[in-house]
C-alpha cells in the first residue's frame, strides 16, 4: 500500500486493525438492498412533473388528462401540502427553513429552476406514470432568469423571491434582492497587517457548481395506512432527518412516520435533505397504495443539490521572511433557488490552517435560478481553500520560498486563534506538513511540462446527538444498534469499538442500523461525525453494558460489586482477603442472565461534544499537454491528521475518495447552462467525473494526533480530504505551465485558451 500508515499502537486488540467489514459480503454479492431495491405488494410507480423553465410563474395546473389515463391512481401538487410559514428549524445542526424545503420539494407559485418539481403522479406501471406526467398540463408564464452569481447580485437582476431582503447589511435594505445574507468575521486589523507586509498577493478566483455525484439516485417507497401511519423505505444520510422533514412538510406528527433506512449508495452531503419522500407519502395517502419514486440521473443533476459555484477574492500579505501579516477574503457563493449557500463556512475555514493575526472574511449568500445547493463534503471550504491556497502558492513564488516552508512557518497550532473566534485545542496541521516534507513524493524529480502543487485544508468536524444500544445475546454474542446509515464502512468501526470495550472477539459483535422505531434519535450521517459521535455513544453503551455485566457477575458470585473488574471479556474478582475467583466469561454471565435480572443490555443517547478539527495536506504532480491543454495527474499523496484510525483501510478510503472528487472538481466537473437557463450536461457522459483511467494510485499518510474529546482519539476524517485538492491540482498546473490558474475546472479547452492568451501554447 505504498507508504505504510503511521499508526500509534496503544495495545488495542481491535482498534487500528483491518478486519473485513460486517456488511461486506452482502455488498459484493448484490444482496444489499439500496433505495430502489424495495418492492411492496400492490405498489404503484411514481413520476415527478418538472419545470422546463429556469424561472416561471405557475398560472395553473390541469391534471385531468393525466387522471383520465387508465392506470393512473393519483396526482399531487402543492395544493396537497400545507403552505408552511417561514420557520427555521432549531434542532439538529445547520439551520433549515422548512418553508424553503417545502417549496423546493414542490413548487407552489413559481418554478425557480429547470427541473423544479411542480406535480407528481402515481400509476400502476412506470411507463404509465411517465406518460401521465407528460399529460399534466402546467400553464407557465416564463419570467426572466439569472444564473451567474455576480449577475444575480446586480441591482436590475430578475428577483427570485419578492420577500427576500439581505440580512447582515446596514442600513437594512428596503428592496427585495437575490442577496440573501452577508456575514463576516474579523480578527485584528487587516489594514495595519497589510501596511506591515513586504509582499502582497491579491487575486480573484472562480469555481463552478459541481454535483456530489453519488452513483445511487434518490429513491423512496412510502405506504400510508388508514390509521394515519406512514412508513418510508428510502436512501438517505439520516432516517431521523427524513422523518422530521417529512412530518413537517406534510403537517404530520413525528410519531406517525416510521423511516426504514436502506443501504445508501453514496451521499457526500447530497442526501441530507428530502426530495422524494414527502411526495411519495402524499401519493400513497391519496392513492391508498404504496408508491415508489426513483429519480433518473437527469433528475438528480437538475433537481438535487450541487454545491455552490463561487467567486472568491483573496488578498494576502507577508513579511520578506514569509511570516503572514494579513489576509482578506470576499466570498460570493451561489445558493441556488433558495437561500443557504455555505459561504459563511468558506469564510470560517479558508484561513484556518494559518496563524494570521489580522484577517477578515466577507461572505455573501446569493440565490439564482439553479437547483438549491445541498451540502457537499466540507461544504463551502474547498472553494475558499482554492483561493487561499492558490494565493499562498503565488506568494511563495514571489518570496522565492518553498511553498511547504511558507506553510510550516505560518501553521496553526494548539492555541492559535481562528478567524472565527476560538483558539484551537490539540490539532495536527503542522504534523501533516512535517509528514509531507519527508515523503518521497515531495522530493521526487519532475520532467518537462510537469508541475508539483501542494495545498492544505481544514474542516471543523462535528459531534451532536447520537444513540447506541448494545444487546448481549444468550450465547455471549452481541448486537450493536445505531441510528446512522453506513456510507463508507462505519458498521465496521462501531463493531471494532464495541468489541474493544467489551473485550470479546470482533466476530461475536454484529453491528446493525436501526430504523426510527428501533433506536433513539441520532443526527444524520454527515459532518464527519459518525465514527466520532456515534462511536462515542457506542463506547459509552459498551461501558454501560460492562457495568451491568459486572453487577451480574457479582450476583452470581454473591459478592459485593466493587470487587469485580472487567478484563479481556471476563469478570475478575479479588476479595479483600486476597481470594481470587475463577474469571467468569461474558458468555457465562449471559447464559445466567435470567437468574440475575433478565436480559443484559446497555443503551445510551448523547449529545457528543469534543469533536476534533481535522487538517490535511495534499501533494499533486501533473503533466500538461501544451497542444491540447489536457492535464494528467501523475502522482497524488494525501496526508491527514485523523486522530486515530479505527479501521485504517476505510480511513485511507476517505482520503482517496475525497482526493478523487477534488481532482474532478479541479479538472473537469461543472454545471453548464444555455442561454435559457437549462442545464446542458445532465448526464455522466457530459458531466465528466473521474474514471479509473483518469487517476493514479492515491497514496495516503495517516498522521495520528489523538483527539482528547474521544475515548480512542478519533477525529472526523470524511470531509477534510476534499478541501486541499482544488488548489493542489491548480498549483501543480500553474507551476507546470508558468501561468497562474484562477478558475476551475481546468478542462482542456479552458486551459488551452489560457495558454494561448499567455503565449505558452
Amino acid at each position, binding site marked *: 500500500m505504498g507508504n505504510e500508515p503511521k499508526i500509534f499502537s496503544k495495545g488495542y486488540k481491535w482498534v487500528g486493525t483491518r478486519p473485513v467489514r460486517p456488511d461486506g459480503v452482502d455488498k459484493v454479492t448484490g444482496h444489499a438492498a439500496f433505495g430502489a431495491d424495495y418492492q411492496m405488494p400492490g405498489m404503484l410507480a411514481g413520476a415527478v412533473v418538472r419545470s422546463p423553465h429556469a424561472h416561471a410563474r405557475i398560472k395553473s395546473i390541469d391534471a385531468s388528462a393525466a387522471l383520465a389515463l387508465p392506470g393512473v391512481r393519483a396526482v399531487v401538487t402543492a395544493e396537497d401540502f400545507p403552505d408552511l410559514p417561514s420557520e427555521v428549524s*432549531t434542532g439538529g445542526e445547520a439551520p433549515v427553513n422548512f418553508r424553503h424545503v417545502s417549496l423546493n420539494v414542490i413548487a407552489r407559485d413559481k418554478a425557480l429552476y429547470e427541473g423544479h418539481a411542480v406535480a407528481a403522479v402515481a400509476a400502476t406501471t412506470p411507463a404509465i406514470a411517465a406518460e401521465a406526467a407528460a399529460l399534466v398540463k402546467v400553464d407557465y408564464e416564463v419570467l426572466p432568469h439569472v444564473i451567474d452569481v455576480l449577475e444575480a447580485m446586480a441591482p436590475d437582476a430578475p428577483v427570485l423571491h419578492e420577500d427576500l431582503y439581505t440580512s447582515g447589511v446596514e442600513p437594512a435594505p428596503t428592496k427585495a434582492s437575490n442577496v440573501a445574507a452577508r456575514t463576516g468575521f474579523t480578527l485584528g486589523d487587516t489594514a495595519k497587517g497589510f501596511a506591515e507586509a513586504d509582499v502582497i498577493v491579491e487575486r480573484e478566483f472562480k469555481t463552478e457548481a459541481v454535483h456530489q455525484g453519488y452513483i445511487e439516485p434518490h429513491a423512496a417507497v412510502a405506504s400510508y395506512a388508514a390509521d394515519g401511519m406512514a412508513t418510508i423505505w428510502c436512501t438517505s444520510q439520516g432516517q431521523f432527518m427524513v422523518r422530521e422533514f417529512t412530518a413537517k412538510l406534510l403537517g404530520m406528527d413525528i410519531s406517525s412516520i416510521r423511516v426504514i433506512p436502506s443501504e445508501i449508495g453514496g451521499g457526500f452531503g447530497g442526501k441530507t435533505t428530502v426530495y422524494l419522500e414527502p411526495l411519495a407519502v402524499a401519493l400513497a395517502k391519496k392513492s391508498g397504495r404504496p408508491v415508489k419514486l426513483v429519480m433518473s440521473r437527469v433528475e438528480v443533476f437538475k433537481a438535487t443539490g450541487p454545491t455552490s459555484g463561487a467567486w472568491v477574492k483573496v488578498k494576502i500579505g507577508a513579511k520578506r521572511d514569509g511570516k503572514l501579516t494579513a489576509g482578506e477574503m470576499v466570498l460570493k457563493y451561489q445558493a441556488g433557488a433558495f437561500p443557504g449557500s455555505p459561504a459563511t463556512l468558506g469564510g470560517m475555514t479558508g484561513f484556518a490552517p494559518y496563524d494570521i493575526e489580522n484577517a477578515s472574511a466577507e461572505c455573501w449568500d446569493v440565490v439564482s435560478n439553479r437547483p438549491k445547493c445541498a451540502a457537499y463534503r466540507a461544504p463551502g471550504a474547498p472553494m475558499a481553500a482554492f483561493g487561499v491556497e492558490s494565493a499562498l502558492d503565488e506568494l511563495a513564488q514571489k518570496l522565492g520560498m518553498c511553498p511547504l516552508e511558507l506553510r510550516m512557518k505560518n501553521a496553526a497550532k494548539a492555541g492559535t486563534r481562528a478567524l472565527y473566534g476560538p483558539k484551537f485545542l490539540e490539532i495536527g496541521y503542522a504534523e501533516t506538513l512535517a509528514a509531507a516534507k519527508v515523503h518521497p513524493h515531495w522530493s521526487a524529480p519532475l520532467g518537462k511540462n510537469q508541475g508539483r502543487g501542494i495545498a492544505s485544508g481544514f474542516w471543523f468536524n462535528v459531534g451532536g446527538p447520537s444513540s447506541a444500544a448494545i444487546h448481549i445475546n444468550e450465547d455471549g454474542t452481541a448486537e450493536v444498534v445505531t441510528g446512522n446509515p453506513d456510507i463508507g464502512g462505519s458498521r465496521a468501526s462501531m463493531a471494532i469499538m464495541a468489541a474493544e470495550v467489551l473485550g470479546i472477539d470482533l466476530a461475536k459483535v454484529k453491528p446493525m442500523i436501526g430504523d426510527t422505531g428501533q433506536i433513539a434519535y441520532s443526527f444524520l450521517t454527515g459532518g464527519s461525525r459518525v465514527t466520532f459521535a456515534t462511536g462515542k455513544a457506542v463506547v459509552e453503551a459498551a461501558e454501560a453494558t460492562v457495568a451491568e455485566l459486572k453487577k451480574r457477575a457479582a450476583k452470581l458470585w454473591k459478592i459485593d460489586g466493587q470487587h469485580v473488574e472487567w478484563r479481556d471479556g471476563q469478570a475478575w474478582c479479588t476479595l479483600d482477603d486476597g481470594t481470587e475467583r475463577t474469571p467468569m466469561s461474558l458468555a457465562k454471565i449471559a447464559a445466567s442472565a435470567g437468574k440475575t435480572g433478565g436480559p443484559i443490555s446497555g443503551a445510551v443517547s448523547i449529545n457528543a461534544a469534543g469533536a476534533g478539527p481535522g487538517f490535511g495536506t495534499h501533494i499533486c504532480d501533473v503533466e500538461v499537454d501544451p497542444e491540447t491543454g489536457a492535464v494528467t495527474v501523475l502522482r497524488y499523496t494525501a496526508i491527514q491528521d485523523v486522530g486515530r484510525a479505527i479501521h485504517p483501510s476505510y480511513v485511507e478510503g476517505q482520503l482517496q475518495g475525497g482526493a478523487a472528487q477534488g481532482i474532478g472538481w479541479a479538472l473537469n466537473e461543472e454545471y453548464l447552462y444555455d442561454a435559457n437557463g437549462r442545464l446542458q450536461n445532465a448526464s455522466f457522459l457530459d458531466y465528466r467525473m473521474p474514471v479509473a483511467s483518469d487517476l493514479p494510485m492515491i497514496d495516503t499518510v495517516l498522521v495520528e494526533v489523538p483527539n482528547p474529546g474521544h475515548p480512542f482519539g478519533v477525529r472526523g476524517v470524511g470531509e477534510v480530504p476534499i478541501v486541499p485538492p482544488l488548489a493542489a491540482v491548480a498549483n501543480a498546473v500553474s507551476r507546470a505551465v508558468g501561468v497562474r490558474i484562477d478558475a476551475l475546472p481546468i478542462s482542456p479547452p479552458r486551459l488551452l485558451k489560457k495558454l494561448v492568451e499567455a503565449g505558452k501554447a
Partner: protein
Amino acid sequence: MARVILQGELARRYTGGQATLVVQASDYSALVAELKRRYPGLVEAIGRRTAVAIDGEIFHDPLHEPIAADSEVHFMPLIGGG
C-alpha cells in the same frame, strides 16, 4: 471573570461596539442570563441558530456547561457538514 468575545456586527448593534465583554458566571446558562440583563436584545440576536465555543470546545446545544474564571466564550454559526 470570563470573557465573551463578539464578532463585529453584534457588538456594533448591542454592546455599543464593545467586542470583549467581561462576565461573572460559573456556567453557560448563568452567562446567558447575565448577558440578557446587561445587553437587551443581544441574546435574542444571537438566537438559537448559534453554536458556542467555550475555551475552544464547540457546543451545539449548551445549557449548564461550566465556565471557568479565565474562560473565553465565542458565539459562532452552527456548523453542519456533508
